[in-house]
């Protein structure tokens, strides 16, 4: 739905050059919620602004819904008619809401429709319908200054949906909100994604946002995408920074003669109660040192750090059992299998 290839953005000011985007290839599938996470200054903001060409990329292409927007751009800083039409089919919500303070909530939602040239009656009908969708039907006549942060963002979302977009861009939409409100706004985005089949590209610096609503995620550092993929693909990637940050596990072994095992759940295996199966099959006591589990799309996803009695050599069979179940097993502190075997052989 959204594809960028070799996207580069260089800012020039007073002879100095700052590379905000350094060859970004992004691919967002239709109907998914895609999160780009990174620290401030990583280039997330430039990336999302390049998608609807609020920022003109220095090089590279952006394709949204099969349309090459960079080709529509034309010359000069101003946007031509075709690009403006394409933009009206991409909704955008902002960190600081960006509602017009001089207009009522309803008039704010009507604004994109005014730009599209929709007639007055139709605008009002659509605006009220959208306000109902985001749960603010009773606030239509209020001014933004009279609303709470979460309500303002709901208005922002309703406004972004006015042009019936297929794609919604979210620029740190929840970063100015408290945790409770953040959850409700994310829930709303998730619902809209499901109900309307909306493709959502969001940028954030909060891991929780990615964890709670994203199907796929990308990690940005210094203008590049360092890791990307679906959440379960990322989990399956050994040494994935993003997976480690999304599902952090910790805990030390409680004694020398004990083995610590990291179990990563992803895919179909995650539905099986493997830990209790393991315990019953081999009659061993398992302690859980730490776990970070979540239910993503009805499947259990996450990591668990468990401790088995006995050294690694004593636990080869139970560990083999876990592997057979299709789980990914890592032994913290023992990087590579061959090295382990040699060590064992030396003893």
């Amino acid at each position, binding site marked *: 739905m959204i594809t960028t290839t070799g996207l580069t953005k260089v800012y020039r000011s007073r002879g100095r050059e700052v590379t905000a985007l350094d060859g970004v290839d992004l691919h967002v599938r239709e109907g998914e919620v895609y999160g780009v996470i990174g620290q401030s200054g990583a280039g997330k903001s430039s990336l999302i602004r390049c998608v609807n060409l609020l920022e003109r990329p220095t090089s590279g292409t952006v394709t949204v819904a099969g349309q090459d927007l960079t080709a529509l751009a034309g010359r000069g800083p*101003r946007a031509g008619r075709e690009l*403006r*039409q394409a933009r009206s089919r991409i909704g955008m919500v*902002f960190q600081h809401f960006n509602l*017009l303070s*001089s*207009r009522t909530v309803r008039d704010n939602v009507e604004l994109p429709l005014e730009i599209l040239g929709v007639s007055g009656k139709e605008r009002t009908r659509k605006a009220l319908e959208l306000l109902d969708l985001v749960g603010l039907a009773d606030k239509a006549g209020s001014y*933004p*200054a009279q609303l709470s942060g979460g309500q303002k963002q709901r208005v922002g979302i309703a406004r972004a949906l006015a042009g019936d977009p297929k794609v919604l861009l979210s620029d740190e939409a929840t970063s100015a909100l408290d945790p409770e409100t953040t959850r409700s706004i994310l829930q709303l985005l998730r619902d809209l994604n499901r109900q309307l089949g909306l493709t959502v590209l969001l940028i954030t610096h909060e891991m929780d946002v990615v964890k709670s609503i994203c199907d796929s995620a990308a990690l940005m550092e210094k203008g590049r995408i360092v890791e990307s993929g679906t959440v379960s693909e990322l989990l399956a990637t050994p040494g994935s920074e993003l997976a480690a940050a999304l599902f952090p596990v910790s805990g030390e072994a409680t004694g020398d003669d004990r083995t610590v095992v990291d179990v990563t759940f992803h895919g179909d295996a995650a539905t099986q109660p493997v830990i209790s199966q393991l315990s019953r099959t081999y009659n061993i006591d398992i302690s859980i040192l730490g776990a970070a589990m979540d239910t993503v799309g009805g499947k259990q996803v996450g990591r668990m750090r468990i401790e088995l009695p006995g050294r690694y050599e004593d636990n080869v069979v139970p560990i083999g059992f876990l592997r057979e179940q299709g789980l990914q097993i890592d032994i913290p502190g023992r990087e590579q299998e061959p090295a382990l075997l040699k060590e064992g052989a030396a003893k």
Partner: protein
Amino acid sequence: MQPLLEQACWDTFYMVGWSTLIAVVGGLPLGILLVLTDRGGLLQNVVANKVIGQIVNVARSLPFIILMVALMSFTRWITGTTIGREAAIVPLAIGAIPFFARLVETAVREVDHGLVEAVQSMGGNTWTVVRKVLVPESLPSLISSATTTIVALIGYSAMAGTVGAGGLGDIAIRYGYQRFETGLMWITVAILAVVISVIQFAGDYAARGLHRRGGRSGPGPKLRLLKAKEPDAQPVPAAGATTTDVSKVA
């Protein structure tokens, strides 16, 4: 004496009224253009920005009395004369356009860039941004700017009065200065003070009313004062009022 003052008042209002109108019509687009053509603006054009900025600066820094004299031939070309209230409108308006334009520039620059970005993301063009964002969002400041311009124009119009434009300035000079009729001069001073106060109050009231409606960052201290004075509920219902009246009568 009274018809004299009355006529002078009307002359002043006439000059100030028309020149304010022209200043707003001319200064508003000029001020917006100054913002749009600036570096990073929607119509970025450094050369145009420098040229407009320079013209505005020069016109603004010229003392009004000099501007009036310098524009004499232009005034004659437009109105056919250099004397009278119509003739005074020309230099007054030309002096006020750059004055108002600078104030507009400051007001419009205050508008959050995020709002401009939001309208762009909806597919709005520059004209949409001006019409739907820049002007409505800066309206309270624009009204304050217009008030300031009107007050400045009243001052300028008095200067114009000294060279034959009529109005309150003319009275003060001819009767107060040249004939030592101090009483009459003080009356004009009092009238001017009242007029300016009323205009300032009306302007502030309108700007504040708009701001309260939309206030982005919440009400300022002045506004709170105003709110505190306002009763929350409507005054006593009509029925109650009638009963008290009746009891008083009784």
